[in-house]
């Protein structure tokens, strides 16, 4: 049982370190010149922040690859020196992380840990600090472990999986990033914030029944005004009705399927409403 727990730690630690590397690369590609950091690197002077983040990245990458590379090949019944170095280095890395996160929490309480790039923007809490503490303990547990081997029986494989599932659940509990990922996966931007091309609005308008009703009264091809307020885009056309100059205004709700379209006709000179105006039920911007 104890051996199974120890053996699971190495792939788990390697996955965490390499995952953190990948997230940092993603962040660096999206904001290559970001020196105004809101993570622990922000504790350092501006000119040192980038080198420090590169150092952290290199350490994570080196340790992650080192854990994998030394897990199988070196040693017989006892681990060889490279494996011991990689595992000790991992333990030290997470121990330092605990201290840095604790310091950041006290000095810059609004900062995120930055562990997984932009996913780690949540202010550092006790859970965030406990996570590297747990990983440090995991790395310590791997010291002295012989090279990894495949499970010798199905019962042993099940035990491995059970230990892995429990530890993943524990890490998930300690990771604010998981909530951020879930939110992003299921996120749909509110219509007020969604960028919608005018062309799409015009297509929706011209497929609507209010358009068919009033198209015959429109006297000029281009609209005289187009603007947007929140979830509504408004399109105004000049027109004529019974010899009077009128403004025909359409309001198109900015949603992708079956958008609500409303219309009104105003006397261009007196602003008197001549055609059907909307009711207040859908007047949400």
């Amino acid at each position, binding site marked *: 049982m104890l051996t199974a727990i120890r053996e699971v730690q190495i792939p788990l630690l390697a996955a965490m370190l390499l995952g953190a590397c990948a997230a940092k690369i993603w962040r660096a590609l999206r904001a290559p*010149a970001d020196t105004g950091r809101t993570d622990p690197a922000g504790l350092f002077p501006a000119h040192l922040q980038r080198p420090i983040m590169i150092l952290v990245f290199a350490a994570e990458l080196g340790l992650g690859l080192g854990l994998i590379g030394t897990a199988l090949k070196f040693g017989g019944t006892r681990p060889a020196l490279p494996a011991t170095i990689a595992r000790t280095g991992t333990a030290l890395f997470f121990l330092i992380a605990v201290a840095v996160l604790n310091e950041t929490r006290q000095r810059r309480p609004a900062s995120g840990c930055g562990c997984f790039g932009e996913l780690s*923007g949540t202010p550092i809490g006790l859970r965030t600090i406990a996570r590297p503490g747990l990983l440090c303990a995991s790395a310590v547990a791997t010291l002295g472990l012989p090279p990894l081997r495949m499970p010798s029986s199905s019962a042993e494989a099940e035990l491995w999986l059970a230990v892995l599932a429990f530890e993943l659940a524990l890490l998930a509990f300690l990771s604010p990033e998981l909530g951020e990922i879930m939110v992003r996966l299921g996120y749909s931007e*509110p219509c007020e*914030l969604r960028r919608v091309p005018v062309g799409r609005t015009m297509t929706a308008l011209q497929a609507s029944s209010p358009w068919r009703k009033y198209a015959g009264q429109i006297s000029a091809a*281009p609209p005289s*005004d187009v*603007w*947007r307020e929140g979830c509504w885009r408004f399109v105004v056309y000049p027109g004529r009705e019974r010899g009077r100059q009128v403004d025909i205004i359409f309001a198109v709700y900015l949603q992708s399927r079956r958008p609500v379209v409303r219309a009104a006709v105003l006397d261009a000179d007196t602003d008197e409403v001549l055609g059907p105006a909307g009711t207040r039920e859908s007047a949400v*911007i």
Partner: protein
Amino acid sequence: MRHLADIPRWCDDVTDSASPARFARRSLLKAAVLGLRDESDFSVIAAGNGDAGAAERPLIYTVTGRILDVSPHIVVLLTEHGEQRFPLAASAEAWRGGPVPPAALRQGDHVVIRRRLPGAPVIDRIWAEIGRVTGTIIERDEPPGLLVDEGPAKGRRIVLIGPQATGRIQVRFPRLEPGYLIDVIGLKQDGYLQALIPATSQPPYRAGHPPVAPMVSGHVPDPASGTAVWHEPGEEPENLLGLAYPALDPETSCERAAAATSACSGDLHAVEEYAVDPHATGSGCVRLPYLSVGSLVRLRNDCAERARVVPVTSCGATARLFCDRCVTCGTSRKGRIADLTMAAFVELGGALEVGCFNATMMIGS
């Protein structure tokens, strides 16, 4: 059938002389088509000013003009209505680089004055030759002379920081270096601003990388809270009651207008690397719904407990770069929600030399 090619490239710009009536009419048309005509004072105001233009709503507290004469008891201004005389309250205060007696103001000074009561002649505050520069530092000389990019719509300004103001400003703006944000208030001089007061505190990040706003589920919260600041008129009318809104619809507004010609001479290629297009940096730290020039919002000064309906009159995308707070009365929520004209800022009870007030903005109806 109308084709997409028929749709002109819409360009909202309130300084366009042909446009104010079009913008003013928008609220009326919106109210008509959405059936809001009778229920919102937004539309009542719009209807009452239908031909006056969104830019010309009445100011009841604020007057702008140039000083023709001043004495301890009276000030004579040249305003848009001609020569006007205003009695000074006994407690009247004036600002010209700092607190000064009203009689110390000079002929020819451009001033913004605040009436003690709405529409009353007696005035209690005067700001003379006050200016503000808000943007990204793109060049620095010694002694502190800065070239500041205020965004594509406003262009570039020169800021000089005298020895007497350096310490005060650097306490709040420690990084007076290219690539960082600055927001200072001071005296307008010929071709530059003599910075005297830090308007806010400097955000810790580089201008091009403001924090990302939290995601919003459902609809955007209305009302929105944050900071309201002010800007110099530029090409706008001095007495414009309006605001530069940080989130104009990018599809129908002049958000990506070509950068204005620089206010200073010299080769600018060396500084372009620090110039930031605020439209390319995301939404800033406040998520605000897209609006257009002519949209009406109700803005409340939480410090003075005074509210007004104010039209959107220009693009305030530079405000998105500033993820800061106002501490005029308590600590505001993070982020700038409105960049008011000077007249609107004073009208809402703000003090120009303070630079901001905690604000609540109601956008919908």
